[in-house]
């Protein structure tokens, strides 16, 4: 028995089922990520972190807990990471991106619920996620009806705390949300038995802001045409940012950006000349969900930007680090999160405006809208986004799918037809 097996067993992992899961990951990684040509050297770190996804990083979580720290799992970019860090915790993003034990999940959830929720419960029930098993507390949120009710189911298996995210952005919604941020802090203090002070909170805000700055720097580099990094690599970095150590990740993202800046100066790109530039918009793509990005990029285009929770929505906007006191700092934190353009908000014109801005700034040729089947907020918003993009003459392709591979061929045909429309000189 390896060292990790002992650790996993200690966490209550089903070793046999887990071994099965770990077997499918390397070939998936090879096919979607490693097979890309001319990847930056700076991606080696992220390849390593992924190869140790259930190993070294989990060991760090275990050691952290042995040292008296807590681990807090989250399912949404709305949960304030800085509060968890300030309380001396490690924050890990938990949304699952692969189909695991759907038949188990369907004992507790309807068949027609989004793949993300079903997968998350599948991971839990099959006991194959060392992250969720390492968590002292799970923080849910009311960002959709499915998740809201799911957290009741999950709460029967593990301690779950739910934040109420408002669905409008009016003044009293802001008041509610500011209160919710304070309520979470109190819950975290209760968990650790320690009061969070101003300096601890400010340090946490700085730490997480640094991570955001590094990720935003990477996004700036994605404006390069021809591209210096693939969309899949950028997606991977963002997916890993949800669970890796924030300070270490910041350094590695900055080192990657240094390299990309050199590449750009040398005129070196990932794959020769101009490729059609795609904005990927819609639902999050949790690890190891690379299906649509891979289809786009193996069809000759590049994903130049991700308008997703595993993309710009995760790290756009910073918290005001100089806020004068505890109250002001907590308000700044709350206000930063309320700027995330999640599809649960109504009205949500801001999201459409943001997409239009990204289309312009990143010189996007076409938008691929990725919606998980049964995700009402994102599937409904697709119509409005399409209407607005049509006015700009930007081709729009709507893909409704889940984590299975059965529709890869059909999706490829549609994506390739889109690329033929925007990409070729000879235009069909």
């Amino acid at each position, binding site marked *: 028995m390896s060292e990790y097996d002992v650790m996993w067993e200690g966490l209550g992992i089903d070793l046999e089922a887990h071994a099965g899961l770990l077997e499918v990951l390397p070939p998936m990684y090879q096919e979607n990520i490693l097979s890309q040509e001319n990847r930056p050297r700076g991606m080696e770190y992220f390849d390593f972190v992924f190869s140790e996804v259930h190993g070294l990083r989990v060991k760090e979580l275990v050691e952290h807990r042995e040292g008296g720290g807590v681990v807090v799992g989250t399912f949404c970019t709305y949960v304030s990471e800085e509060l968890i860090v300030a309380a001396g915790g490690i924050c890990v993003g938990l949304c699952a991106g692969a189909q695991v034990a759907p038949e188990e999940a369907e004992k507790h959830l309807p068949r027609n619920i989004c793949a993300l929720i079903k997968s998350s419960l599948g991971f839990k029930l099959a006991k194959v996620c060392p992250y969720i098993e390492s968590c002292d507390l799970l923080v849910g949120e009311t960002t959709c009806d499915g998740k809201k009710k799911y957290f009741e189911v999950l709460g029967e298996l593990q301690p779950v705390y739910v934040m109420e995210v408002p669905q409008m952005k009016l003044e009293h919604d802001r008041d509610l949300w500011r209160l919710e941020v304070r309520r979470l802090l109190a819950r975290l203090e209760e968990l650790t038995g320690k009061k969070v002070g101003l300096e601890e909170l400010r340090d946490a805000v700085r730490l997480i802001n640094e991570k955001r700055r590094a990720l935003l720097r990477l996004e700036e580099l994605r404006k390069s045409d021809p591209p210096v990094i693939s969309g899949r690599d950028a997606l991977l970095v963002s997916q890993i940012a949800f669970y890796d150590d924030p300070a270490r990740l910041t350094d590695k993202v900055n080192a990657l950006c240094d390299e990309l800046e050199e590449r750009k100066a040398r005129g070196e790109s990932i794959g020769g000349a101009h490729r059609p530039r795609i904005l990927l918009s819609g639902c999050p793509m949790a690890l190891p969900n690379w299906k649509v990005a891979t289809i786009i990029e193996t069809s000759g285009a590049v994903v130049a930007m991700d308008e997703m929770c595993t993309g710009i929505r995760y790290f756009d906007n910073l918290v005001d680090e100089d806020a004068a006191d505890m109250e002001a700092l907590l308000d700044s934190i709350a206000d930063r999160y309320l700027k995330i353009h999640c599809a649960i908000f109504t009205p949500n014109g801001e999201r459409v405006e943001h997409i239009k801005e990204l289309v312009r700034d990143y010189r996007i040729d076409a938008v691929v809208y990725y919606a998980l089947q049964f995700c009402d907020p994102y599937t409904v918003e697709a119509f409005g986004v399409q209407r607005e993009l049509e006015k700009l003459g930007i*081709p729009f392709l709507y893909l*409704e799918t889940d984590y299975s591979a*059965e*529709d890869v*061929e*059909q999706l490829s*045909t*549609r994506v*390739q*037809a889109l690329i*033929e*429309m925007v990409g070729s000189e*000879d*235009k*069909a």
Partner: protein
Amino acid sequence: MAIGGLDIGSRTIALVEVEDGELRWGKVVATTFDPLEQCRQLLADRSFEVLVATGYGRHLAQANFADRTITEIKAFALGCHRLFPECRTILDIGGQDTKAISLAPDGRVADFQMNDRCAAGTGKFLEVMAAAMGLTIDEMGRIALETEAEVKISSMCTVFAESEVTGLIARGTPRPEIARGLHEAICDRAVSLLKRVGVEREVVFAGGVARNPCLRALLERRLKVPLLIPEDPQLVGAMGAALSALQ
């Protein structure tokens, strides 16, 4: 210069030869479980300067003998534009997929819609329903024209619709009425797909299902426009593939 166009669909494989931009020869065979062997036989006595493949088997063809590939969307756009230069809207119902394509006046693809992963409203749907009623597809199309009365088939899911048909048979509903209802259901589906890209004249109906006279009649009635039907609607994709080599 002879150019080959190969369309490997889920039900049929079409090969055409285009010379000086004109269709010289074309042949359609069943796809079977061994499309590669079917292609090899089709290609046996032929030689082309360039061979372009399309359809769901295009990558298989490229891995083996085709020079390049294009999608069915582009292939049907090119093929229909060549046959009917005024064409602005295309409906293509094949074995597995239904596509609605809108063309700009110069023949460029302006927009397209495809059915999702299920076989709702495709040739496969007709095939399964015909089998459920103990008919061939041609027979089903023929008897559907015998009546104006129809029963409403509410399910577009092929599997659910099959149960629905079984239920109707058990209730003693006449087969022509069921057949009519099934054609209406496909017509509904095709029209909703077409409306999403916008219906502008001229409208071309291509793909194997365009050979079905009942569906043609129902679509024309519903869309209130005459449909242009290629002489051999199954060859249009292969022809488009070949034409793409000339661009």
